[in-house]
């Protein structure tokens, strides 16, 4: 009887002390590139840098989970990942807050990205080229950002979800001297997430 109790007690102790069963898997990202995760478990260190490379407690070697196994165990978790942040660029006619013809078309892509998201978060940053003085360009870049915000609000994106800022000629895409008419610098960046 005493021995039985001891055996049961040891059994319970072993059960309580058993380590967690842990799994870490590195996935190929959407652009096909695979990143790296370094797993440190006590003294042991594993570097996961191949698609589906897997580290498990109690396993010394790096293993590889199949895509199916990942889907089975992590499918619902992966499905809950928010939409990927994405960025767009719109370009303007010189000295104005009027979009180029190409950029008017791009506006449609932005709208569909926004409609995909239940709760879109938009950051609109206006820029200018180096034609004109600094102050005027600050004003123009802010105005460009506001114009784009106006388009978005017009199609139903809540105003509270859109932030704007104007960076003037401080952050050119293409570095130029002063007073250079550079179409690629007359732009608004739209970050959607």
């Amino acid at each position, binding site marked *: 009887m005493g021995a039985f109790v001891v055996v049961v007690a040891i059994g319970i102790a072993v059960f309580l002390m058993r*380590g*967690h*069963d*842990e*799994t*870490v*898997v*590195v*996935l*190929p*990202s959407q652009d096909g*590139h695979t*990143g*790296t*995760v*370094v*797993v*440190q*478990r*006590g003294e042991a260190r594993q570097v*996961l840098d191949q698609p589906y490379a897997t*580290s498990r*407690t109690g396993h010394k070697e790096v293993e590889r989970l199949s895509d199916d196994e*990942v889907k089975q*165990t*992590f499918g*619902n*978790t*992966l*499905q*809950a*990942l*928010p*939409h*990927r*942040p994405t960025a767009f660029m719109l370009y303007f006619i010189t000295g104005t807050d009027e979009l180029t013809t190409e950029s008017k078309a791009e506006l449609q892509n932005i709208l569909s990205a926004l409609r995909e*998201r*239940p*709760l879109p*978060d938009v950051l609109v940053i206006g820029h200018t080229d180096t034609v004109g003085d600094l102050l005027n360009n600050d004003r123009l870049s802010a105005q460009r950002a506001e114009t784009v915000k106006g388009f978005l609000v017009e199609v139903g994106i809540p105003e509270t979800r859109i932030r704007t800022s104007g960076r003037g000629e401080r952050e050119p895409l293409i570095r130029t001297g002063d007073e250079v008419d550079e179409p690629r610098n007359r732009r608004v960046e739209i970050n959607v*997430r």
Partner: protein
Amino acid sequence: MRWTIALALLGITATAWAADVGEIKVVQGAAQIERGKERLPVKVGMAVQEADKVVTAAESTVGITFADNSLLSIGPNSVLAIDKYVFDSTTHAGQFDSTLSKGTLAVVSGKIVKQSPEAMRVRTPSAIMGVRGTEFIVRVD
């Protein structure tokens, strides 16, 4: 006088740290955030703060987008603590530490990791992961 300014600055920084670091974008089923003594039901649009603990029920999931564009999703029956989150939106320097004590977690790293590899760490009961990018999943049984 100088000290007063320094203290005032510290105060501002401390407030900034307590501020929102992410936003709940996806909720399925039931989940709550433990914030100090509060227990808040998780809703889409809710802000996530440093030191929050996200707890999901069975068949429930939560997706969060952070200030640096890091994305996290938490599977059913999981507990994830946001231990530390600091991000400078100008330099992209920062630190993002979290702990998964049980359940499943999916991670897409953001600007913090791009700027300084391994500035994002995920802890589990038996391991610590340094993240050099970009997508990975963790399960603790």
